C-alpha cells in the first residue's frame, strides 16, 4: 500500500466518526495547549531573570576574593592575594586578562564637604569595572598617577556640572573620620591628604565602584595610612580582589575551578546564571509535567477511541484482509488514524496555547498597566516543534496497542463479526 493511499484512507477513517474524532482531538489539543502555555510561562520568567542578570555585568568575568573557597560571610577564612597569585592565574588556560584591585581606607573629597565620602579603589588601566560608563572625561590610563575617575554624585558636589569637574584638582583625604549616611564613624589611621586631578566622571547608577584611582596610588595611600610601605602591603595584606576575564563565557567554569585550586573563593555571574538555569529547568519540568498529565489523559482518550474504532470496523478489517491487505497495512492504517489525532490535536493545541498566552498577557496588562513590559509567555521554535512532536508521539503510542489488535485479527472471524 502506498504512503499516499495510507494517508488518504486513514484520513477518511478519521473523518468518518466526526464527533468522536473531534472530541479526541480536542483532548489532545487541550493537553498540548497546557504544556505549551506552562512551559512558555516558565521560559518567559527565565528570560526575564536572565535579562536582568545580563544587565548587571559581564558573563566572562570571574572575581577572585581574598578568602578561602567554600565558606562565606563571617566564617570566611582570609587568604592573601599576591603578585604570585596573579602570575599563576595569568598562566591558566582561557584567561584573557587579570586585573588587580586595591581598596584604600575610607575617606572623603575635602572640597565636597561632609557628604563626599569615598572609598578610593586602586585599579589597573582597562580594568573591567572601568569601561564604557563615562559621563565625561576619560578612564584610568597606563602611567597615570595622582588622578581619579569619580562618580557623578561626587562630581556634582565639587563642580556645577559633571563636565566642568573634569580637569579640576581636588583633595582626596584618606583615613580619619567620615560620614556614612547620617552617622559619623571614626575611620582608620591618621587622615592624610593627596591632591588628585579629576580626569573622568562615570555614571554612578551604572557602576558599583566608588572612586577610581591608579593602583599604585591606592597602595601608597593604604601603606601610609598604616605606616607601611606599598611593597609590604602587596606582600602581607595583599590585593582586595582580582578581576579575571575569560576569553569566552563558556570557559568560566574552568577558570573558577583553577581559582579554587589556588585556594581562593570566587564569584561569577556565569555561575549564578547556571544555577538559575538549573532552577528553571526543574521549574519547567514540573510545569511541563502538569501539562503532561493532561496529555496523558488525552492519550487514554485516543486509545479508547482507537479501540472503539477497531471494534466498529472489525468487519471492514476482515474484508480488507480478505482482498489482500497485509497485517502491516492494517496496522499502518490505524496508526495513521491515531497520528491524525495527534497532528491535528498538536496543531490546534499549539494555536490554542499561543492564543491563550496572548490573551492572558493582555488581561494581566489591563489589570496592572505597570507590569514588566517583557513578554510573560515565550514560545520559541523548539517549544513549538517539541509540542507537535510530543502530541504526535503520544498519539502513536496510544494507538499502538489498538493497531496491533487490528493487525492480529483473524480475517475469517472478522468477516463473521456482526
Amino acid at each position, binding site marked *: *500500500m*502506498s504512503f*499516499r*493511499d495510507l494517508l*488518504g*484512507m486513514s484520513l*477518511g477513517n478519521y473523518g*468518518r466518526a466526526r464527533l468522536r474524532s473531534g472530541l479526541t482531538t480536542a483532548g489532545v489539543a487541550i493537553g498540548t495547549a497546557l504544556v505549551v502555555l506552562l512551559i512558555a510561562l516558565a521560559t518567559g520568567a527565565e528570560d526575564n531573570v536572565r535579562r536582568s542578570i545580563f544587565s548587571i555585568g559581564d558573563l566572562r568575568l570571574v572575581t577572585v576574593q581574598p578568602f578561602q573557597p567554600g565558606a562565606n560571610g563571617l566564617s570566611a577564612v582570609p587568604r592573601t592575594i599576591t603578585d604570585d597569585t596573579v602570575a599563576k592565574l595569568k598562566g591558566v588556560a582561557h584567561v584573557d586578562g587579570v586585573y588587580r584591585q586595591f581598596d584604600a581606607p575610607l575617606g572623603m573629597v575635602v572640597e565636597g564637604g561632609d557628604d563626599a565620602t569615598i572609598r578610593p579603589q586602586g585599579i589597573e588601566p582597562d580594568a573591567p569595572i572601568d569601561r564604557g560608563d563615562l559621563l565625561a572625561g576619560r578612564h584610568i590610563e597606563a602611567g597615570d598617577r595622582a588622578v581619579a575617575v569619580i562618580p557623578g554624585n561626587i562630581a556634582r558636589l565639587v563642580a556645577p556640572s559633571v563636565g566642568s569637574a573634569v580637569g579640576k584638582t581636588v583633595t582626596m583625604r584618606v583615613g580619619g573620620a567620615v560620614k556614612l549616611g547620617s552617622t559619623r564613624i571614626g575611620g582608620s589611621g591618621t587622615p592624610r591628604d593627596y591632591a588628585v586631578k579629576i580626569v573622568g566622571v562615570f555614571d554612578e547608577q551604572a557602576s558599583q565602584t566608588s572612586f577610581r584611582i591608579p593602583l599604585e596610588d591606592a597602595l601608597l595611600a593604604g601603606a601610609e595610612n598604616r605606616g607601611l610601605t606599598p611593597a609590604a602591603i602587596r606582600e602581607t595584606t595583599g590585593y582586595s580582589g582580582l578581576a579575571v576575564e575569560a576569553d569566552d563565557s563558556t570557559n568560566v567554569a574552568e577558570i573558577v575551578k583553577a581559582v579554587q585550586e589556588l585556594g581562593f573563593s570566587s564569584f561569577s555571574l556565569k555561575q549564578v546564571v547556571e544555577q538559575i538555569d538549573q532552577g528553571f529547568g526543574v521549574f519547567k519540568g514540573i510545569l511541563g509535567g502538569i501539562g503532561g498529565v493532561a496529555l496523558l489523559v488525552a492519550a487514554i482518550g485516543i486509545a479508547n477511541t482507537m479501540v472503539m474504532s477497531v471494534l466498529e470496523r472489525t*468487519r*471492514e478489517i*476482515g*474484508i*480488507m*484482509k*480478505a*482482498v*489482500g*491487505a*497485509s*497485517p*502491516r*497495512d492494517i496496522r499502518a492504517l490505524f496508526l495513521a488514524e491515531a497520528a491524525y489525532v495527534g497532528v491535528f490535536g498538536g496543531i490546534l493545541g499549539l494555536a490554542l496555547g499561543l492564543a491563550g498566552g496572548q490573551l492572558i498577557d493582555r488581561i494581566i496588562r489591563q489589570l496592572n498597566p505597570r507590569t514588566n513590559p517583557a513578554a510573560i509567555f515565550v514560545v520559541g521554535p523548539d517549544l513549538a516543534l517539541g509540542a507537535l512532536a510530543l502530541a504526535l508521539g503520544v498519539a502513536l503510542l496510544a494507538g499502538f496497542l489498538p493497531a496491533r489488535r487490528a493487525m492480529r485479527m483473524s*480475517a*475469517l472471524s472478522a*468477516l463473521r463479526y456482526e
Partner: protein
Amino acid sequence: MNAPLAVEAVGLERSYASGHATVAALAGVTLGIRRGEFVAVMGPSGSGKSTLLNVVAGLERPTGGSVLVDGENLAKLDEEALARHRSKRVGMVFQAFNLLPRFRVVENVALPLAFSGVPKAERLRRARAMLERLGMSARADHRSNELSGGELQRAAVARALIGDPAILLADEPTGNLDSVNGAALIALFEELHHQGQTVLLVTHDAQIASHAERTIHMRDGRVVPE
C-alpha cells in the same frame, strides 16, 4: 489435457481445537483443479467445503498436508506473503457480498489494487473497465448500500477479478440472492469460465452445481465419490 494445475491439494488437513477435542474440518483432502476448469464443491454443512475454499484463498492455514495454488505452496507463506497471495492469485466472492458500504462501487472494486500498490487513478480506471465488462457501469458511482443484492454480488465479482487472479473462488455466492438473480450470477460464472477463468464454487445446491464442468462431493472433511 496437460494444463498445469490451478489447485493441487495432497492430504490436506485443517483441524480446530474445540474445548478438549480436536475437530477436523479437513481430514486429508487430495484433489486437483486444472486451469480454466469450472469446479463446484458440494456437500452438507460441516462437510468442510467452505474450509477448503478458505484454505485455497489463504484465509486459513492448513494444519497438515500441502496445498499448491498456482504453483505456490501456501503452507510455507507467512502472514505478509499470504496477504500478497490473496491480492494477486485469488479473487473471492462471499455469500454476504462484503462490500464496504461507505465507499462507492468503483472504489470497492478498486480496493484490492490499493494493497498491491497500484496508483489511485490507474486503480479507478481499471475498476471502471471491469465494471463495464460485467455490465455494471451505470452503478459505478453509487454507494454500495444503494445497490440490489444481484448488483452487489456482481460488484463483488468485479472486485474479485480486478487483480486478474489465477482462480476465482466463490462461497455460496447465490445464498443471499433470489432465484432470478442467482441464475444470472451463475450465468456470469459460466461466461467467465468460457473466457478462460478458473472458477471454484462452493454450494450446497445441486441445481447450481450442475452448471459446473465438474462437481467434487465432500463429507466429514473428505472428498467422497458421487
